[in-house]
């Protein structure tokens, strides 16, 4: 079978609490915490960006895969915060990993689903026998305008997945993508912060696509929600994924391990892939896992994975997501956060 041979994640150590952001803008933190089900979010260090996060996540994936990086024939980074508007993130990542020069590289952008997009293409290339191994990364240092609702969730982190045919940890049983032109959230060329359509991001955007892809892949594969051990849905906030999962027939218990948003925030392209990574950390052989991403604009990629026995051998070869999420946290106040995120106007 074709599937994931190695996976890994990376989260920065810095955090800001919902209370501190709410206080800055005169908002009631209890209402926000209740409404969005968020407590805190990750913040990239001054020296971290999509490239450095991708490198660290990929290093963890390589540790678990135990393969020679030189055998990776394709490397794709999905993000909506590539450090350069023109110049790939992937080339730096490939150099740092030692994947160059015989490799195909591309940066993807599709709002929050660029990560699963990178995974989808990586999987497709292995399946087409074009490359031995391919890596897909979803990573972001997400932007949210100061004072905007997104500022409570936009966070940093990422996950990397290496696809191959041998020593697979999680077989890909099926994939399905569901896409329409729906402008619910966007950022124009040159604009610093994204804009969004408020409540329009809900039913016509997130739910339509997540449920569309979810229902279709279940129908096509013939699996019922109860066949799955776990399910992960893109996490723009705490509430949406739980609502979507429930509508599809999943229980809170199935979603719980991948529902990392209350402590991590929404890492955009890294969101559902990192929830998936957290789930792989605890999944058992033969478990079925459903992963559904969502990217504004809008579309969803759905995957069904089946765990193999090998997961028990590789799991402990790199740091687990729960440990990254809960250990070594360094809290910033809003002023420090504004500096770290480049929200202060400076002289060149």
């Amino acid at each position: 079978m074709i599937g994931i041979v190695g996976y890994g994640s990376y989260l920065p150590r810095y955090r800001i609490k919902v209370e501190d952001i709410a206080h800055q803008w005169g908002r009631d933190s209890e209402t926000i915490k209740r409404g969005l089900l968020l407590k805190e979010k990750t913040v990239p260090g001054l020296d971290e960006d999509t490239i450095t996060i991708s490198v660290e996540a990929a290093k963890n994936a390589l540790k678990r895969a135990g393969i020679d990086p030189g055998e990776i024939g394709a490397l794709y980074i999905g993000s909506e915060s590539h450090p350069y508007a023109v110049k790939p993130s992937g080339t730096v990542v490939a150099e740092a990993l030692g994947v160059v020069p015989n490799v195909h590289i591309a940066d993807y952008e599709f709002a929050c689903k660029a990560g699963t997009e990178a995974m989808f293409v990586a999987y497709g290339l292995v399946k087409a026998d074009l490359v031995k191994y391919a890596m897909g990364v979803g990573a972001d240092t997400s932007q949210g305008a100061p004072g905007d609702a997104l500022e409570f969730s936009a966070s940093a982190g990422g996950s990397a997945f290496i696809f191959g045919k041998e020593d697979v940890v999680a077989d890909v049983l099926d994939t399905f993508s569901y896409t329409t032109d729906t402008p619910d959230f966007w950022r124009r060329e040159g604009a610093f912060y994204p804009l969004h359509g408020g409540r329009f991001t809900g039913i016509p955007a997130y739910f339509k696509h997540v449920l569309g892809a979810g229902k279709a892949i279940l129908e096509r594969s013939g699996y019922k929600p109860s066949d799955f051990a776990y399910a992960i849905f893109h996490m723009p906030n705490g509430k949406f994924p739980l609502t979507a999962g429930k509508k599809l027939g999943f229980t809170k218990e199935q979603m719980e391990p991948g529902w990392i948003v209350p402590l991590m925030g929404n890492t955009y392209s890294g969101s559902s892939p990192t929830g998936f990574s957290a789930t792989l950390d605890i999944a058992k052989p033969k478990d079925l896992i459903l992963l559904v991403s969502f990217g504004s604009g809008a579309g969803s990629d759905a995957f069904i994975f089946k765990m193999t026995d090998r997961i028990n051998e590789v799991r402990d070869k790199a740091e687990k997501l729960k440990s990254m999420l809960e250990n070594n946290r360094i809290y910033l106040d809003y002023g420090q956060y504004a500096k770290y995120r480049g929200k202060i106007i400076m002289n060149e």
Partner: protein
Amino acid sequence: MPSPGYRREMPQRYRLEAAKCKKCGKVSFPPRLVCSGCGSREFDKTKLSDNGKIVTYTTIRVAPAQFTTQVPYSIAIVEVDNGVRITTQVVDCKPEDLEIGKKVKLVFRKLYSEGHTGIICYGYKAILI
């Protein structure tokens, strides 16, 4: 000032590639053309370990222009497990967390940006473990 490409993209900066003398076994980082141990000119490729310990350290409070937004930042001479010493920033910690002998791990980070529009320079830094 723009940094030359050789300085940004050298494999040793991204991947800690080093050279091991075929004659005396001394590891050079960065790789050298002449071994500083025995004068030999023949080397094998090798890689520095990601793990090491602090030999000495300081915290920079007055920085050159491209680092001013980072102050105070800590810098250490780190001896990695194969005996090679490098100068590197130690990040994600407070200045008072550093001590001679403390263990560190090398990670991939942004070193600085050449202004808002220039090249972004990446390389190794250390974090306490």
